[in-house]
C-alpha cells in the first residue's frame, strides 16, 4: 500500500508539472497582446506599454517566462496578475468559494442521488423510477447555462425562495441554489447509476444468502445491497468533483459567485498566463488528488481491490 501511494504521488507530481507546462504553452500561443486586452478598446500609451512589458516579462521567450513562473511557484510567490492584484490573494479569496460550491453540489448529488437511486432501484418501474428517468433525460439534454438561468428566474426571482446572486451574509445558504444547478447533472447520473447498481445487487446471490439468514429486508438493503451498490457510485461521484469544479465556471457566472470561474474567465480574456496557469494547475491538482482519494476509497470499499 505504501509503495503504491508513493508511486501515485510521484506520478501526480509529474502529471502536475507536465500539465502546467502545457497550459502555459497554450496560453503563450494564444496570447496576442495581453496589455491591449487589459486596456480594452482604448489604446495603450507607449511608456506604459514599455513599463508593463518589462514588469511581466512579456517580450521574453516562452521558456524564460515559464521559468519565471515556475520559480515563483516553487518559492511560493505566485506573482501578480496582469490586472495588478496578487495572484495569491485572488486564489485565497476565490478558491474557498468554488470549493464550497463544488462540495455542496457534490453533497447534494450524493445525498439525493443515492437516496433517490436506492428508492428507484427498490421500486423498478414505479412512478418515481419512471419520472426520475424522464427528468434525468431532460437534465442531461439541457445545457447547465439554461438550467441555471431558469432556476434563477423561477426559484429566486419569481418564487423568492433564494437570492438570485451571491449573498455572503447568508453564509453557506447562499450556495444552495447554485449548487443544486451545478450538481444536477451529477445527481441525475448518480441516481441512475445507483438505481441500476441497486437493482443489479438486489438480484445477486449474496442477497439470497442474507435473506436465508433471516435478516429483515431493511437490513439487507441498507447494509448488504447499499454497501455493494455504492462502490461504482462513489467512484463516479468522486471523479465528478473535478468536473464540478469546471462546471462551476458557468454556475458562478450566473449566480455571481466570486469564485475561481470568474477569475479564470477574466484571466483567459486578458491572456493572463500566470493567473490562468495557476488556476488551471490548482484545478488539475484537485483533480489528481480527488482521483487518488477515489482510488483509495475504492480500495477501502472493495476489499477485492485492496488485496488484488
Amino acid at each position, binding site marked *: 500500500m505504501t509503495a503504491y501511494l508513493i508511486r501515485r504521488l510521484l506520478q501526480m507530481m509529474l502529471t502536475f508539472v507536465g500539465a502546467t507546462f502545457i497550459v502555459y504553452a497554450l496560453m503563450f500561443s494564444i496570447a496576442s497582446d495581453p496589455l491591449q486586452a487589459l486596456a480594452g478598446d482604448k489604446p495603450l500609451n507607449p511608456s506604459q506599454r514599455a513599463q508593463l512589458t518589462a514588469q511581466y516579462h512579456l517580450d521574453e521567450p516562452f521558456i524564460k517566462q515559464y521559468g519565471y513562473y515556475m520559480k515563483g511557484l516553487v518559492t511560493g510567490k505566485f506573482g501578480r496578475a496582469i490586472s495588478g492584484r496578487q495572484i495569491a490573494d485572488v486564489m485565497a479569496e476565490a478558491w474557498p468559494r468554488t470549493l464550497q460550491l463544488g462540495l455542496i453540489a457534490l453533497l447534494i448529488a450524493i445525498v439525493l442521488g443515492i437516496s433517490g437511486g436506492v428508492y428507484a432501484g427498490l421500486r423498478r418501474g414505479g412512478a418515481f423510477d419512471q419520472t426520475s428517468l424522464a427528468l434525468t433525460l431532460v437534465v442531461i439534454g439541457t445545457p447547465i447555462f439554461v438550467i441555471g438561468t431558469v432556476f434563477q428566474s423561477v426559484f429566486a426571482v419569481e418564487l423568492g425562495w433564494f437570492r438570485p446572486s451571491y449573498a455572503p451574509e447568508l453564509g453557506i445558504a447562499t450556495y444552495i441554489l447554485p449548487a443544486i444547478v451545478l450538481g444536477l447533472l451529477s445527481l441525475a447520473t448518480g441516481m441512475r447509476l445507483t438505481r441500476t447498481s441497486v437493482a443489479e445487487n438486489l438480484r*445477486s*446471490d449474496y442477497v439470497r*444468502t442474507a435473506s436465508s439468514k*433471516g435478516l429483515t429486508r431493511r437490513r439487507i438493503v441498507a447494509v448488504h445491497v447499499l454497501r455493494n451498490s455504492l462502490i461504482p457510485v462513489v467512484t463516479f461521484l468522486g471523479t465528478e468533483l473535478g468536473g464540478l469544479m469546471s462546471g462551476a465556471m458557468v454556475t458562478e457566472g450566473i449566480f455571481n459567485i466570486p469564485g475561481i470561474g470568474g477569475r479564470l474567465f477574466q484571466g483567459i480574456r486578458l491572456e493572463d498566463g500566470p493567473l490562468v496557469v495557476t488556476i488551471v494547475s490548482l484545478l488539475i491538482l484537485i483533480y489528481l488528488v480527488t482521483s487518488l482519494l477515489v482510488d483509495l476509497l475504492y480500495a477501502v470499499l472493495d476489499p*477485492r481491490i485492496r488485496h488484488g
Partner: protein
Amino acid sequence: MSHLLELQDLHVDFRTREGVAQVLNGVSCHVDAGETLAILGESGSGKSVTAQAIMGILDMPPAVVRSGRILYQGQDILAMSENARRELRGTQIAMVFQDALSALNPVFTVGWQISEALRVRQGMDRGAALERAVELMERVKIPAARARLQDYPHQFSGGMRQRVMIAMALALHPKVLIADEPTTALDVTVQAQIMDLLAELKQQLGMALILITHDLGVVASVADRIAVMYAGRIVEQSDVYELYRRPAYPYTRALLESIPRLDRGGEPLKVIRGLPPNLQRIPPGCPFHPRCPIEQPRCRELLPPEVAVGPQRLSACHRAQEVLNGTA
C-alpha cells in the same frame, strides 16, 4: 405423526414477459430429523426453485406459488406472515448455496458474515458473536480459524469458502439444512471432503439434510433417500440402495447408466438423448416422453400418477413396474 418438513403438491410458476414457465408442477416429498434426502435432477429441473420455495427466498415476482403446502413441524409455512417465516430462516431451516464466491458478500469479512446472524437475530455483542464464529469455523474444520476471521471471501480457496458457508448456515442451530449443489464448483477430492463434513455435521447435530445435486455419484454415500426430479416433478423416490440397484423410472435408469462405474469396465457410457423440456410448453402426457426410449402411445396423452412401486418407493411412470422389473 407428521414429518419434520413436508412438501405437498407444490406448484410454482415464473411469470415473465416471455410467458409463464411452469417450473414446479406438484412436488411432494418430506424429510425427517437425522435423515438425508437427496434431490437429483438435471439442470433446470427445478431443484433450486424447490429449495428457494422452502426457504421463502424466491424472487417474487416473477415467481408465484400457485398451489401446494409446505409443512414445517406440521404447520403450513406458506400461510404464515412474512415476519413469522423470516423468523424460521436460519433458526429452523438454513441453506448452503451452490457458488460460495457469489453467495458470500464480497465486501464483508467472513467473521462479520458468520457472526451477523448471531448479532442481529440473537442480540449477541460483537465480541461474543466473533468468538462463536471462531467455534463455528473450527467446527467446519477451517484451519487457523481465528486468524482468518478478518479475511474476505475472495481470500479463501473454494473448499474453504464452502465451509464458511456451512458455518454460517449452522450459526443459529437450524433443524433442517438445505445444501444446494454445495460441491459443484469444487474439484473431486474437495467434493468428497465437503460431503463427509455435511454427513458428519448432520450426524452430530441431528439435523435433517436436503442435499441437492445433479451428480448421482456424489450422493450415493451420503443420502438416505433420493428424489429424482424432472421438469418440475418428482418422478421417482426411493431409498438409495434400492434406487441404485433397481431404478423404477426410465430417466433414473438412464442417469445411472451414464455414470462411469468400475464394475462396468470398458462398456461405453450411455448418454440421455434429447433436450430438457421447455417449461413454458411442457409436453402433454408424460413430460419425459419425447426422450424416453420406452415411450408408448398412452405416455403422450396421460400424465402418469405417482404410484407406490414398493415400500417407500414411488415412481411416476406408466411402465414403472416393467422398468423396475427390468422388463422394459
